[in-house]
């Protein structure tokens, strides 16, 4: 219900914004809706667009539950795709039943390592993960650009004029389920992670540690939980999901190559998704579908009505505030802490 209010507020402010900037808001929204939900093909495409977003969103959600802000999805997604691209080329002779899992694992490992580094910095060195993950984003971006540099990039396809990676083996390609859409077989694995993440958070020891550290680090310590270890393991797991998403995107979307701008802001979409999902894996799934539709709809809207598709970013900014403002009371991460009670101040009369 709260999400509904937030979406209404977001769309309302967005409409005002479109009108003020000289476009027809009704026309823009109508086009966006038709493009994203008008036909069964569009639904399939939304599902395809949501596939990496589900994994990225789950990663951010799990980190949230431990009180961690993983805003490095862009970088983790990128290194995951790079790892799959490199390995997919090196092992191009492998059959699909071996190559596909190998590439999934390589992407998850790369993303996990990338985020795990930020986790280690947080646990051992008190480096705030917001700054470290952003720095790692730019480093990953540079790494990708280097690897496919036309002149000296070790991953660059010398037969191509543009900076793009070498092709992966045909065994590593995930079959497209509906032609001319982004929907590929990876969607099954991505969807499987929704109940898996819910199980991990609710039933597993790791999930219990994550929740306890997120809700009350002091209590966690009293129970003998090693906070530092939980922090870096959570970050690594969160990054592994993002890296898996990157690998899957490379293996599932034609032309199965790494190019500059590969992550295309999806690491940041993941933050909106996790916030809208309110910390629950099922909520994250719905939010990912919504963002997938927003992505598809806004690019269609730009082509047809000329309203820049960056409108979707403006909407996301408004949505985050609208969604988090009144609620999420039980997750302290989303809210400002209550003031620490200072007995002297209260005795002094607590004038306000």
């Amino acid at each position: 219900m709260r999400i509904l209010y937030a979406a209404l507020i977001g769309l309302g402010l967005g409409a005002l914004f479109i009108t003020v900037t000289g476009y027809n808001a009704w026309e823009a929204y109508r086009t966006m809706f038709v493009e994203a939900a008008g036909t069964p093909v569009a639904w399939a495409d939304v599902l395809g667009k949501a596939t990496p977003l589900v994994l990225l969103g789950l990663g951010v959600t799990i980190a949230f539950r431990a009180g961690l802000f993983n805003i490095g999805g862009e970088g983790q997604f990128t290194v995951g795709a790079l790892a799959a691209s490199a390995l997919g080329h090196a092992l191009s002779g492998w059959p699909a039943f071996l190559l596909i899992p190998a590439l999934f694992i390589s992407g998850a490992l790369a993303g996990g390592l990338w985020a795990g580094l930020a986790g280690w910095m947080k646990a051992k060195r008190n480096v705030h993960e917001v700054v470290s993950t952003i720095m790692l984003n730019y480093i990953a971006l540079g790494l990708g650009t280097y690897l496919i540099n036309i002149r000296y990039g070790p991953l660059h396809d010398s037969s191509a004029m543009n900076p793009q990676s070498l092709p992966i083996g045909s065994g590593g390609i995930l079959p497209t389920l509906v032609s001319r859409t982004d929907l590929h077989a990876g969607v099954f694995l991505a969807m499987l992670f929704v109940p898996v993440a819910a199980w991990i958070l609710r039933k597993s020891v790791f999930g219990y540690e994550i929740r306890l550290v997120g809700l009350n680090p002091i209590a966690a310590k009293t129970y003998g939980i090693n906070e530092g270890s939980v922090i870096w393991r959570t970050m690594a797991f969160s990054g592994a999901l993002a890296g898996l998403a990157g690998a899957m995107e490379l293996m599932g979307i034609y032309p199965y190559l790494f190019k500059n701008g590969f992550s295309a802001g999806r690491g940041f979409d993941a933050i909106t998704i996790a916030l809208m999902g309110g910390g629950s894996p099922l909520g994250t799934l719905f939010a990912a579908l919504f963002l997938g539709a927003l992505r598809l709809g806004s690019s269609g809207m730009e082509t047809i009505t000329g309203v820049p598709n960056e409108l979707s970013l403006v909407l996301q900014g408004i949505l985050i505030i609208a969604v988090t403002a009144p609620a999420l009371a039980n997750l302290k991460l989303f809210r400002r802490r209550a003031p620490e009670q200072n007995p002297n101040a209260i005795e002094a009369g607590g004038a306000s």
Partner: protein
Amino acid sequence: MNTALLIGIIAFTLRASSPLIYAAMAGILSERSGVVNIALEGMMLIGAFTGLAVGATHGAPAGVMAALVSGALLGLLHATTTQKMRVGDIVSGVAINILALGLTSYFSRIPALSGAAGAVIGVPEWSVTLPLWIPSFGGLKVSQSPFTIGAWLCVLSVAYFLWRTPWGLRVTAAGENPAALKAAGVNVVRVRFGAVIVGGALAALGGAQLSLGLVHNFTENMTAGRGYIALAAVVFGRWRPGGAFAACLFFAFADALQSGLQVIPSIGERIPTEFMAMLPYVATLIALVFFSRQVRGPGALNQSGD
């Protein structure tokens, strides 16, 4: 390394440091008052855009004014969400950064609003040569933009404000012990609003320096993490203006070094440009890894003020 290159690197360090310095001072004001401010990135970005867009049509001074206003508005938003709507500081900061990225990219693609798309590019050189301030090395003159001198004055002003004025004391108290400040009859929320709004304007000024003074152009997401680097400088400088200033110089030096070294053929050919471009980010990470451990921020960061 020859002298000309060395002077070039020093001059570039000074230029590249000023956007960071403005943003770091903004971060100090905001965090000293108890509000975590990762929205610095978005505030810089919106300042870079409005500064250039308004500057291109109405002249650079108008552009600077517009940048200040746009940043102050984002500051007002950050203060409202965190102090009135009780959104967490980091969530609000992320939202503002996404919003600013969306707004600036959106507007820079609307021809009707930015004049012709070409008008956004090509603001006349605004670096003024001030004879008194020019350091001369071996007969070579280095001109610095007024923004750079402004940045140094900004450090002095923020330091004076924080340590020597009653208002500065209230800002620090709002961040250290809001309950005590409240007991003394001061409205904590109002103090924080002031600090975050002024900070927003300052960070936007840093962004305007980037677009108007340094690059003479606006490109999508042109701040490229500088807001976060400035935040790292605040931590590195232990929430003190002087310390953050030194940290900004260090990070800007890493930036200058990478562009300077690329020019030297013997190095530029051997090390790929992409690795050089990573230098500021790697330097920031390493600095944080070595210096974050013992630091402690203001006591009531991210705590409610009422």
